[in-house]
């Protein structure tokens, strides 16, 4: 096991990793930016090292500074947390080259995960269901494209191998619009990734976003730790997540989970990660893999009782998994709210100083936050204040507890989305569990219209 770990992240996830390390008896060094110098939780670390100025590109994304901090503080391993450098194959390779351990997937695995075409091929080999469509880029042949689209059935989507939001991606509903959409997407593809290659896929109209949590050691042992529903999103930002996914039969999850475990063995995936799926009409379609610890990992921890961060560290240190699949017990239901400092109308980040802070408690409630009253949410990083997680015997119980917890929470001095979360938990469809990727935007649009009229 490692003697000392450098935590290359900030805020609640840095504190989460620090807690896991203290629990395991591992010494900690927290690398932080100048803007986070005064963060009070840093006092809990054995060491804190300032690695650069506030902008993330000069600190939390500064691979050389982080490595240097690890070396001068004699850390043996680097935990990247989530975001920042967690998915960077280059960083993982540099950590390796410096003779340190990267607590995450191997560099070559991360390279595969970032290459959509190769990854799709690898997943198909492992028997993971993918979104219908050819694996190769569209040929420059109008008739062939129309034939393929007809075979898949409209709507279809034309995608560049890299796309950002709506750029490099077009949804097509009719045969008449197809060729024009291909031409336009090719032009954007050339601009975005230097290649005019585009791919054709079946478009899923109202999918749910469901992830399967995986845990793998370096000895070929792989577990799937259940699924979670992350469908309640606004412009790609998740607001509420839950585990398990409501209304998806356990047997179906187990079947997909086993295939994900096979895929992990085939691609040599180590540590923790989430297989992302778009699920429509009960069918799973592979959408990607997020390597490393994920923001919503507490959900899995609540329903399995496993400390994912500790298991991730053990796996990175070369230890064998301590459980077998059939020994896992899934219990109850967990829901998580992301409490952000943001304007309730515009959803724009609203940084500010927290004047008073009180987090809820009691049975089944967990609050992960590194902030204390008197500290500030800065404009430099994401505006997260806390994640509030409720565990209940069943979904209804979890919602009830979460609603009570949100009523107990007091965050003063800045604007937050606490009230929005309270409203959403009272939404009839969300209570029933009827949601999809577009549901939240729809609800918010109705609310906005209602406000305008009144």
């Amino acid at each position, binding site marked *: 096991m490692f003697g000392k770990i450098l935590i290359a992240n900030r805020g609640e996830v840095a504190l989460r990793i620090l807690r896991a390390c203290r629990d395991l008896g591992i010494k900690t060094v927290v*690398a932080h930016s*100048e803007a986070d*110098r005064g963060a009070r939780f840093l006092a809990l670390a054995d060491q804190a*090292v*300032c*690695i*650069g*100025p506030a902008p993330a590109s000069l*600190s939390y994304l500064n691979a*050389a*500074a982080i*490595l*240097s*901090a690890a*070396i*001068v*503080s004699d850390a043996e391993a680097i935990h990247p947390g989530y975001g920042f450098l967690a998915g960077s194959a280059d960083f993982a390779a540099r950590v390796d080259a*410096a003779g340190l351990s990267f607590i995450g997937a191997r560099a070559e695995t991360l390279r595969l995960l970032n290459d959509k075409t190769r990854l799709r091929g690898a997943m198909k080999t492992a028997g993971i269901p993918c979104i219908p469509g050819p694996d190769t880029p569209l040929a420059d042949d109008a008739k062939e494209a129309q034939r393929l689209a007809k075979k898949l059935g409209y709507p279809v989507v034309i995608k560049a191998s890299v796309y950002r939001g709506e750029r490099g991606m077009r949804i097509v509903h009719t045969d008449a619009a197809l060729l024009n959409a291909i031409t336009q997407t090719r032009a954007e593809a050339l601009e975005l990734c230097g290649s005019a290659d585009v791919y054709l896929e079946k478009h899923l109209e109202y999918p749910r976003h469901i992830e399967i949590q995986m845990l793998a050691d370096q000895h070929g042992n792989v577990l799937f730790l259940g699924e979670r529903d992350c469908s309640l999103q606004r412009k790609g930002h998740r607001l509420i997540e839950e585990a398990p996914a409501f209304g998806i039969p356990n047997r179906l999850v187990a079947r997909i989970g086993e295939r994900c475990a096979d895929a992990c063995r085939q691609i040599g995936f180590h540590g923790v990660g989430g297989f992302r799926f778009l699920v429509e009409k009960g069918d799973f379609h592979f959408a990607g893999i997020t390597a490393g610890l994920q923001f919503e990992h507490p959900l899995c921890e609540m329903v399995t009782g496993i400390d994912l961060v500790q298991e991730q560290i053990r796996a990175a240190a070369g230890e064998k998994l301590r459980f077998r699949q059939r020994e896992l017990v899934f219990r109850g239901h967990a829901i998580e709210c992301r409490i952000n400092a943001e304007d309730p109308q515009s959803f724009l980040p609203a940084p500010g100083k927290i004047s008073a802070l009180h987090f809820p408690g009691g049975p089944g409630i967990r609050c992960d936050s590194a902030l204390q009253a008197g500290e500030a949410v800065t404009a430099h990083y994401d505006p997260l204040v806390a994640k509030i997680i409720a565990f209940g015997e069943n979904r209804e119980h979890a919602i009830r507890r979460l609603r009570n917890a949100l009523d107990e929470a007091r965050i003063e001095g800045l604007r937050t989305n606490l009230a929005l979360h309270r409203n959403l938990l009272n939404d009839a469809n969300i209570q029933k569990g009827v949601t999809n990727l577009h549901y939240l935007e729809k609800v918010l649009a109705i609310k906005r219209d209602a406000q305008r009229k009144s």
Partner: protein
Amino acid sequence: MDLRKLKKLIDLVEESGIAELEVTEGEEKVRIVKHASAMVPRQKRSESAVQLPPATGADDDLGDGETVKAPMVGTFYRTASPEAAPLVEIGSIVKEGDLLGVIESMKQIHEIESDCDGVVRAILVESGQAVEYGTPLFVIE
């Protein structure tokens, strides 16, 4: 010597910084020694003691000079190579751009240059010590 004159002398000693006063008038001789009145200067001294630290500077602002801070995390050295003599000593005169020390980071050497002309007033970190981003290294005045 009448009492009124005596009182005037005492007041004079009290107001002044004089510790002892001896006055001879004919055969009369008065010697006034300040003991308890030492309260006044002691008070003054303690006031100045409180004012002192800001003048010598807190960590962030050492003296009147420019503080040269570490631009990165790494190991600080006062020499350009292991056997060489220190690049600067306290009292060395430096020009803008002169080499003051180096930081080794990821097996690369980064030079620390003076950003002003002046005299090295303080060297705040020992050679071979690990420094973080922003650690004050030198004061140039």
